């Protein structure tokens, strides 16, 4: 696992016990008989920081979250929320945390208003119900039975219930699944507001764009292990910039030039041979420029043209897919 120095907004938050982190996970293992669902996961989340836990289905994300929520005792390793073991949701933890579960967890025979009202009356320091319903756009549905809501509306209600208790640590397990594009964007806006307010957020999602937009740091899990971890820019930087073009007809693949700090791969796409240079070394801001300049100089010398020339940075999807293939080298 790669640990990358944390940068950005989260460093400005006040520090206390555990280096100021609200959530600390150290070498967490979860075993079910011979099967080990989580294998040595470590991370921490500071107030005002969003940590995204990504991974394929069955990677161990939900098991990790359930351990943090206090439903599972670690097989080994330590988990601390506000410095306390969260197992069994002890007082001092349960009033300060909340979650949007992967499934909805709503009582279908209650109305939206009744659902919120019960949660409000049970909470330690709740926000006003109307305010939260307005925030998630369910004011006009307050009298409607939960069973009558669409999947996206139920997801909004899940979020409303989590917001209602003013959590200081919030676990979001695929919170926007089933939402339309507008709902997703509004949810992102709400989550960003929570971060600014100082809430420590753990997010799992299958929408990589969501993680790219919201995460201060992220980790990609595969088969119970964190394969990639760090600040988004560093994770992408480790993957490298790509320079691609169609190999000129008059050039054999063996004649392609070597570029300093880059690795070349030739693949056939759409009945054409494509050369892709992955540039991983050198100054991140300038390395693509130097690679392109070297290739252009080579093309000029050969009197040829680099057709359909493309330059792009790595996307989270590139990193994710490589990890999911099980072919990833550690990045970061």
């Amino acid at each position, binding site marked *: 696992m790669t640990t990358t120095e944390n940068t950005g907004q989260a460093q400005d938050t*006040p520090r*206390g*016990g555990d280096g*100021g*982190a*609200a959530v600390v996970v150290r070498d967490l293992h979860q075993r079910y008989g011979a099967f080990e669902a989580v294998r040595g996961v470590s991370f921490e989340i500071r*107030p*005002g920081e969003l940590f995204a836990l990504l991974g394929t289905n069955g990677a161990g994300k939900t098991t990790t979250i*359930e351990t943090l*929520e*206090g*439903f599972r005792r670690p097989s080994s390793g330590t988990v601390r929320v*506000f410095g*306390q073991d969260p197992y069994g*949701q002890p*007082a*001092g933890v349960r*009033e*300060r945390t*909340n979650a949007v*579960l*992967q*499934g909805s*967890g*709503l*009582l*279908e*025979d209650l109305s939206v208003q009744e659902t919120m009202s*019960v*949660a409000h*009356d*049970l*909470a*330690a320091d709740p926000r*006003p119900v109307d*305010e939260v319903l*307005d*925030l*998630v*756009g369910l*004011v006009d549905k307050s009298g409607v039975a939960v069973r009558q809501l669409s999947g996206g509306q139920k997801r*909004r209600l899940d979020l409303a*219930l*989590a*917001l209602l*208790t*003013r*959590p*200081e640590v919030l*676990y979001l397990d695929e919170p926007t699944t089933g939402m339309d594009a*507008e709902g997703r964007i*509004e949810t992102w806006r*709400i989550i*960003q*507001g*929570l971060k*600014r*307010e*100082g*809430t420590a957020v753990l997010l799992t999602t299958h929408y990589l764009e969501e993680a790219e937009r919201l995460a201060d740091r992220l980790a990609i899990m595969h088969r119970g292990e964190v394969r990639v971890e760090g600040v988004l820019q560093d994770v992408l930087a480790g993957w490298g910039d790509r320079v691609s073009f169609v190999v000129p007809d008059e050039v054999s693949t063996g004649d392609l030039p070597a570029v300093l700090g880059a690795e070349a791969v030739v693949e056939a796409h759409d009945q054409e041979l494509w050369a892709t240079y992955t540039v991983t070394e050198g100054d991140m801001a300038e390395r693509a420029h130097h690679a392109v300049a070297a290739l252009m100089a080579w093309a000029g010398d050969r009197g040829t043209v680099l057709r359909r020339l493309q330059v792009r940075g790595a996307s989270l999807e590139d990193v994710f897919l490589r990890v999911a293939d099980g072919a990833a080298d550690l990045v970061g």
Partner: protein
Amino acid sequence: MSTTPPPSTPTAAAASPAPSGPGSGSAPGTPRRRAPRTAKQLLRLTRMEFTLFVRYKTAWMFLALPVFFSFMALQLPADEVVPGFGMGEMAMLSSIGSISLILGMGHASNVFTARRESLALKRFRVSGVGQPVIFGGVIGVVAVFSLVIALLIGGFIAAMPDGMLPRDPLMLVVAILLGSVAFSLMGLLVTPLARNAESAQLAVMVPMMILIFASGGIIPLEALPEGARQLFSLIPSVPPGELVQAAYTGYDVFGGAAGAESKGYLGLWAAALPSIGIMLAWIAVLALAVRRFFRWDPRQP
């Protein structure tokens, strides 16, 4: 969703964070909030359970069953067992103790299995609601409806030509409350065995019927040999029935109705202590078993 959040939304709060809001700088590990008192949470959750109970069609079936069993008991011979009370009437009184058995085992197992599978129980837990409060809500509603049905049957008894009211209403209430706690816990204990609400109803049926038939409400325990009767008195469905019989008749029926003596107020309570003790012991054992075996998560480890 709204595009312009009101002043106190998370977004706006960022501009001027409230002193009590998250991220105000207190050290982690310092609890700054106190949840509403457990009793207040319990009452609120019982109120919610009441609303849901009224809306569940299956729950109405669990209300009808004890009424049916009570009137079935009246078909027994009218031979007098204690002065003024025949075998059928004593069985009917005993069946009042079984109301909470049917409601507690049937309703609690049904709704808690369904809620576990729908993640509704986890939803409460992650919102900071304690386990005793979540269990207490369903026990509360079982107690409320058991008292309502007992009142209904009690009203019928009072309206009969030689009808009467309970000599010790408090003992009647204690019997129902003890039964509500014990049998609701039993219902909760069934839920780990069931994958969904339907299978919970099937799983609960066999122990429920055994307990009902052994309670004295269907087959009078007086018909059993003394040794068997004493053994049966340890079964949790028997003490509530005996407490109701004693509460109505004012007789010490705890050692068997045959030859039972009339007791004064304190004497009757003193005679009731072993039965109350048996129920409290069952409640303690069942509570420990629920704590150990109850599953909150539909995912099998």
